[in-house]
């Protein structure tokens, strides 16, 4: 066998070499020396220690999963008064319930709206955060600053792709739990997320304005805000009832 290439020696040094190289190294002192040249930096790198995390990290993560996520200052400043939001939330819930599909009789009886309360607190928290992020994204797109006649969509597009996958999961979960309101609102959110997720790197200002006009026509931001407040109210109510539940 001819002498192995450096790539083969590195593979050998890192434990995924081929048998022919291993066999060659048994008898070739020149290649053994070459191999040692690769093993030295690997052995040195292996001495690079990783520290232990802060002992409080686990508690912080659990707390992050368990506690309501603080709204961003941008959103906080836009949040409505509690009583008005709650009242509108109830109205939206009622409207969604009235607008539920009734044509085809399902084989099994549908779950009542009240079973939404059976969703886990952690799921409601995660959905609340998801809605916060979606609102931030839509607000960022809405208030983007055009430069040289174009709006950069790259970051928004990446974020929309992440949110889109999560949105479908939450929508499916909401449907499975009979939470028609959540499923409805999440369903409304999907088209704009899809549009942003499939947008090019840059939009000219005309395209950007038309996109925002489409989003505005569905009053989506308003509905998201209201539903987000409703979720928070549900969570607080449940926390109060269960006294210490997540």
């Amino acid at each position, binding site marked *: 066998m001819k002498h192995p290439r450096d790539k083969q020696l590195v593979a050998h040094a890192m434990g995924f070499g081929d048998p022919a190289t291993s066999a060659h190294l048994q008898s070739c002192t020149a290649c053994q020396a070459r191999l040692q040249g690769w093993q030295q930096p690997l052995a040195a*790198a292996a001495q690079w220690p990783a520290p232990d995390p802060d002992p409080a990290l686990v508690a912080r993560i659990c707390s992050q999963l368990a506690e309501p996520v603080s709204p961003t200052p941008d959103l906080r400043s836009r949040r409505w008064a509690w009583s008005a939001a709650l009242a509108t939330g109830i109205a939206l819930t009622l409207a969604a319930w009235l607008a539920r599909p009734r044509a085809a009789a399902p084989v099994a009886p549908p779950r009542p709206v009240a079973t939404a309360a059976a969703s886990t607190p952690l799921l409601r928290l995660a959905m609340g955060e998801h809605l916060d992020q979606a609102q931030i994204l839509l607000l960022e797109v809405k208030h983007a600053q055009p430069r040289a006649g174009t709006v950069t969509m790259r970051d928004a597009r990446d974020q929309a792709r992440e949110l889109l996958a999560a949105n479908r999961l939450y929508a499916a979960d909401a449907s499975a739990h009979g939470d028609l309101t959540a499923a409805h609102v999440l369903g409304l959110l999907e088209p704009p997320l899809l549009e942003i997720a499939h947008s090019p790197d840059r939009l000219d200002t005309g395209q950007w304005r038309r996109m925002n006009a489409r989003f505005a026509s569905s009053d989506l931001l308003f509905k998201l805000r209201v539903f987000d407040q409703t979720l928070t109210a549900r969570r607080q109510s449940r926390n109060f009832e269960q006294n210490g539940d997540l």
Partner: protein
Amino acid sequence: MQQMTNLAGEVSADSSPAALAPELDLSSSADFRSVVEIYSTRLYRLAYRMTANRQDAEDLVQETFLRAYRSRARFEARAGVGTWLHRICANAALDHLRRHRVRPQATAATGSEMDVAELLPSGDASPERLLLSQEAQRRIGTALTLLTPVERAAFVLRHYEHLSIEEIGSTLGLRTSATKNTIFRGVRKLRQQLEQAR
């Protein structure tokens, strides 16, 4: 015990990400807390080796668990909780490295000379040797930051996390041959950087 430790001095014989995975119900908040307790240190070390920055590593671990929580419905038990979390963490770290040109806090460049051979363990724990070791660690950390994000991810996942080439390729979205090439390029850069420091 020696045979149970890898070159970095960590348990390796049965420490593949999947090996630590007990049967857990991720829809249970109590079990999810257990997952956090079991895997946070391991993921922190992975994130630290990717970023060389404590705060970034903590942020990435938190992000990993949040992402995992949100997408736990997609989790397939056959993959193992640990493997799944590793994949999320590695990708989060990769995204982070791509977004930021990371300047690690622990790797301030120094002008002192050092032979790679001096970095090797000697068994001598004298103060001078420990000081050298700290200097060596900074140099290694600096050298690793000169790898591209994908090279660094591939190298860390192989050298410290002992993932198979197939697992690394799957995590990073690379074919097997591309994964091997990426690791080779990373090691070659690492060697060049360390040799330039002589």
